[in-house]
């Protein structure tokens, strides 16, 4: 099967190369049949890569250790769920996932546009096939996922325990979907520039893909933050790590893009800006993929010295040169059709929002690459999270403020009446929140957090007002009941009200971030059983140590050592009992020295009381060095002696003895109840970060969902356009109705 997998990759590479050639030929010769052939090449590529992906996935699920990749990243004791996810825990597997998703999304967009934009799609096909060619050739020539071992072992190394978290199943595919989806608008922008067709049609055709990319990447980022909070990051959800930043960069410029395209659709403005943004976003998505694998920046996500740096740098430089060259040579057709009428208009607010987003992206980029910039100047220097917080917080405040203003202000030029009509209630609400928070006390000494709460109140009230007024108007027309009127309001303006919901979600998320970072209490403390320590408004008592051995199919999966903790209120009443643990995994199955259990990667199983008001978060680190390891080493010596003396002759006897000693070790730990180290965090409103993320997700889905009547109108618009063209002959001088005109004010 591995040979078949490899053959699929080689064929996919061939087909992708053909796709590039056919796409370019179709554009030069203006041949529809060749363009169709190029498109089908992309479908074929998607099919071939699907087969390769399935073969690899099956190999992981079947524990086929003849695959080098399965041996190094999975084992029989790895739970089934994680075997499926282990495919993308490796360099090779994750690249295959990347190019597979790319092929699927490319096929989808080319299928949807098969009868539209005939001058743009051939080049877009060639660009998409170009990306696929790059990644498939890495898989064929550099890091093959189908490497076969001469003598397959009976057991594999297992999935890194740190990656054993449900997020492993969704977080990487979400991020990669985001990255690969951003290549779709990139490809169509290149196509539009090459064909000099820079009206809004390519934007309308790829808008959903841009929105999908934005949504997937955003959800991927939030899932990563949640994962970090619940497992890896010791209570932090964002560390300004280069790899985190790399995923944030295209998300920021993508956010700018999905806002500014509205101005191009409605007013024919900002064409250079839009096309530059979308090209930048595409390049940043590739940069993000590259940063994860290059090892050029020190990151918590370390990836070994990879050999992929040079090809990626060549690709990125090539993309930049191509983009800049194309935009520069097409400046004549990218001229704006209108000018900004007033600074007090929705266009202007969108423009400011764009500037803030791009400034944020620039600042994050600058900070991330600061080590490389300073190294080029002599001494390598780094900026840490305090710097990032210092420079991004003011921008984030401005961003939420603008997101609050934009839905309220009129297009073209706001009048005094408009301002009064729209802003009175939201501003009053913001002022009320300010007064209440200052009066309640405890918040005023954190001005940044206070500002965020006030601005968020302004935004949320503004959106609520929009919903209220829209619903009232609908109700007046249709006489529907309130809930029906709300649903029909949203259904008829999915993009608008979906977008408003996203704003509310983002504001909610920022409230969670502001509260939890400004008012968090965290302690690292060593406790003996019986000790009580204070954290925030609670006290925590270390009751006793715990320990157990987890088995799977008769083999030891891990030993779990932990602590029983009680969360007490101020008066000492027990509110909750928590049992944080730490898992230690065997290095070599079926057995090895007892002490080797502590050589691998342990994982913390964090336990918390999560609530809408605050989370109490606990993690334990049993003291291995002073008690456990010396005992384990004594047991090792006993085991070795037993084998040398001939008491433990068969492997079976040795395994039994090993298990008995391991059991004794764990029992001993529980009985000795030694002191342990704890990290305790009391963090207010963290839950609202995740709730905000869910609201963003729902709002995004609503905005993306195609409206049934719009889809029908689009079909008839396309038909009308074709008829018009045919009637006019082939000179193409008839102005096609652009889709935004057709769709009206969606």
């Amino acid at each position, binding site marked *: 099967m591995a040979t078949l997998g490899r053959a699929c990759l080689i064929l996919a590479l061939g087909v992708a190369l053909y796709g590039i050639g056919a796409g370019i030929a179709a554009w030069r010769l203006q041949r529809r049949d060749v363009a169709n052939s190029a498109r089908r090449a992309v479908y074929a590529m998607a099919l071939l890569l699907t087969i390769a992906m399935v073969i690899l996935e099956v190999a992981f699920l079947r524990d086929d250790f003849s695959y080098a990749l399965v041996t*190094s990243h999975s084992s029989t004791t790895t739970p089934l769920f994680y075997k499926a996810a282990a495919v993308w825990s490796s360099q090779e597997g994750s690249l295959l996932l990347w190019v597979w998703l790319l092929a699927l999304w490319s096929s989808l967009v080319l299928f949807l546009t098969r009868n539209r934009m005939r001058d743009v799609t051939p080049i877009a096909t060639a660009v998409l096939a170009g990306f696929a060619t790059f990644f498939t050739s890495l898989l064929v020539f550099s890091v093959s996922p189908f490497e076969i071992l001469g003598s397959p072992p009976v057991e594999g190394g297992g999935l890194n325990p740190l990656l054993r978290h449900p997020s492993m199943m969704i977080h990487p595919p979400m991020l990669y979907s985001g990255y690969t989806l951003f290549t779709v608008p990139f490809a169509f922008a290149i196509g539009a520039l090459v064909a000099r067709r820079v009206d809004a049609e390519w934007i309308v055709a790829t808008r959903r893909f841009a929105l999908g990319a934005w949504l997937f990447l955003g959800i991927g980022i939030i899932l990563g933050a949640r994962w970090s909070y619940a497992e890896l990051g010791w209570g932090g959800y964002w560390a300004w790590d280069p790899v985190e930043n790399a995923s944030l960069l295209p998300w920021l410029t993508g956010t700018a893009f999905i806002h500014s395209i509205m101005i191009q659709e409605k007013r024919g403005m900002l064409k250079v800006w839009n096309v530059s943004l979308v090209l930048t976003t595409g390049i940043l998505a590739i940069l993000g993929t590259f940063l994860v694998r290059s090892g050029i920046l020190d990151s*918590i996500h*370390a990836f070994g010295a990879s050999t992929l740096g040079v090809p990626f740098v060549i690709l990125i430089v090539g993309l930049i040169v191509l983009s800049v060259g194309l935009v520069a040579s097409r400046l004549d057709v990218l001229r704006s059709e209108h000018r900004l009428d007033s600074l007090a208009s929705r266009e202007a607010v969108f423009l400011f929002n764009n500037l803030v987003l791009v400034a944020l992206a620039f600042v994050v980029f*600058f900070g991330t690459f600061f080590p490389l910039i300073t190294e080029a100047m002599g001494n390598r220097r780094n900026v*840490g999270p305090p710097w990032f917080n210092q*420079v991004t917080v003011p921008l984030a405040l401005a961003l939420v403020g603008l997101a609050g203003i934009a839905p309220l202000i009129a297009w073209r030029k706001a009048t005094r009446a408009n301002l009064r009509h729209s802003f009175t209630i939201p501003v009053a609400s913001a002022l009320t929140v300010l007064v209440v928070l200052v009066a309640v006390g405890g918040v005023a000494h954190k001005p940044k957090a206070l500002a965020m709460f006030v601005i968020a109140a302004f935004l949320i009230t503004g959106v609520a007002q929009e919903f209220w007024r829209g619903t009232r108007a609908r109700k007046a027309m249709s006489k529907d009941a309130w809930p029906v009127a709300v649903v029909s309001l949203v259904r008829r303006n999915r993009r608008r009200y979906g977008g408003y919901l996203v704003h509310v979600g983002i504001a909610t998320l920022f409230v969670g971030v502001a509260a939890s970072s400004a008012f968090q209490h965290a302690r*690292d403390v060593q406790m003996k059983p019986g000790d009580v320590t204070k954290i925030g408004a609670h006290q925590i008592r270390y009751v006793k140590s715990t320990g157990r051995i987890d088995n799977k199919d008769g083999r030891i999966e891990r030993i779990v050592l932990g602590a029983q903790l009680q969360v007490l209120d101020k008066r000492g009443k027990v509110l909750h009992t928590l049992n944080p643990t730490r898992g230690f995994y065997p290095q070599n199955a079926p057995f090895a020295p007892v002490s080797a259990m502590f050589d691998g990667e342990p994982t913390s199983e964090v336990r918390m009381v999560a609530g809408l008001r605050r989370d109490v978060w606990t993690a334990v680190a049993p003291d291995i060095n002073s008690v456990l390891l010396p005992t384990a080493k004594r047991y090792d010596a006993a085991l070795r002696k037993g084998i040398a003396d001939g008491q433990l002759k068969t492997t079976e006897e040795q395994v039994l003895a090993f298990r008995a000693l391991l059991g004794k070790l764990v029992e001993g730990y529980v009985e000795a109840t030694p002191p342990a*180290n704890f990290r305790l965090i009391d963090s207010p409103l963290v839950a609202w970060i995740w709730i905000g993320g869910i609201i963003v997700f729902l709002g995004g889905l609503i905005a993306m969902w195609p409206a049934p009547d719009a889809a029908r109108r689009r079909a008839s618009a396309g038909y009308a356009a074709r008829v018009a063209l045919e009637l006019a002959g082939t000179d193409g001088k008839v102005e096609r109705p652009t889709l935004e005109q057709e769709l009206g004010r969606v």
Partner: protein
Amino acid sequence: MDPARKRTVRLVVALSAAVLLAGALVYTSFSASSEAKSPSELATSAKAGERYQLTGKVVDKSIQQLGGDGGIEFRVRDRDGSTSVPVRYKGSVPDPFRDGREIIITVSKKGADFVGERDSLITKCPSKFSDKPQAV
């Protein structure tokens, strides 16, 4: 004011604002940054009070619990070398922290020791995407 003049004024204002902000960005980043150093560089040239970002590997068997709330003490050596410096550290210790692991930590010199900033210890996770297969 005629529209062309107005646009020029706007452009000049916007550009000056951008230049000022960029200047502020560069200034804050340099004053907030810490120099990246290897243990051997720190051993010879560290100045008291200055912050450094130390990158290196944890020396085998050097990790010690200081007891109570004192945190831990360990030595960090060069990636490919044996020169090492002592580090005292309080704060969260990542799961993969242990002998031989590559770490990044922000430190400043106090006496003969280097003291790590709270929660600044980062351990590189060795297996994800590594080219070497794990020992089997």
